[in-house]
């Protein structure tokens, strides 16, 4: 069971959003950083875990169409680049962005 839940989520600017977690920690997330870590099957080889998308080619100005919850454990981001399959778990959002 994840210790943390999202208490509040806000768009910060055109390229990032911020999350206030239930433990009081506030973290900003830039969309380009998130897409570099996209966990979807198009971006990561499911069998080897090897990254298939080149993080250097991710547009630093990438935006989102929407950010939505997935149950009580993750968020799904629809990027303007077309990628929309990645499910970012709360644990990963806390682990990679502190």
């Amino acid at each position: 069971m994840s210790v943390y839940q999202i208490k509040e989520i806000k768009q910060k600017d055109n390229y990032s959003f911020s999350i206030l977690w239930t433990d009081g920690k506030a973290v900003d997330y830039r969309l380009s950083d998130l897409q570099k870590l996209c966990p979807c099957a198009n971006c990561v080889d499911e069998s080897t875990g090897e990254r298939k998308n080149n993080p250097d080619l991710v547009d630093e100005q990438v935006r989102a169409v929407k950010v939505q919850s997935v149950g009580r454990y993750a968020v799904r981001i629809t990027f303007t680049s077309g990628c929309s399959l990645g499910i970012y778990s709360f644990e990963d959002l806390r682990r990679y962005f502190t």
Partner: protein
Amino acid sequence: MPLPMFGLKNESAAGGKPVHTIAIASGKGGVGKSTVAVNLALALKRQGLRVGLMDTDIYGPSIRKMLPEDRMPGQKGDRLSPALSRGIRLMSMAYFRQENEASVIRAPIANGVISQFIHQVDWGELDCQIIDFPPGTGDIQLTLAQQANITGAVMVTTPQEIALMDVKKSMHLFDQVKIPVLGIIENMSGLQSGGETVYPFGKGGGKRLAREGGVPYLGEIPIDPLLCQKSDRGESIFEEEGPSTSAFLAIAERIQEQLKGLSELGVGAFEMQWQEMGE
């Protein structure tokens, strides 16, 4: 400094969404999930809560038999209104099939039906929505876990090892999707016979599972002929006193305590549409 929320559609604040959504699950079939779901709903209703009950067993819905409707569900455009039985709002596949007609449908269609139950039913104001899960840990269970904004899961087991094994798998599913397990109910616990209690399915399995899983033990429900008879006739066990009546009321109270004790629930289900903002 973050700017104000834009386009945040918080479903739980949008009206008509329940305060708490409780999954009644097991992993194993035949342990009495639907019986527990129905009688917990009646017990919570009796304790003053506004209760809804969603039967998500598309292939073997049985809630309608136990809770015959006072009012059938309705449809207006793409919106559905729930059925009503004893003051409990209900939705089930049983309303869309003849009693002995099977739902011969593949998983994507079944998932579509579940999504409709979650998103297209106008439940009205509810304090508590109970979702009767189908057995297993597959596609439908995952859809429910991802879309139904479940507050917590109540696991139902019978005392024997073979049931505990499947319940553990179901608990693992809830752990994977970060839905807290509110506790374990042991159903078909013991039978009063000739002044003594006999345990045809073994003794203490539910307590042991709760101890091993580090989750609360919510109580046991005895094998009660009255419960069986009343369920088959579509009558409420709460019309008269019996061993299972007091058990359900006590368990409903413990569930309410568990819900109060949950740490902050967070924002719940949301969808944030991206907005153009100044550079």
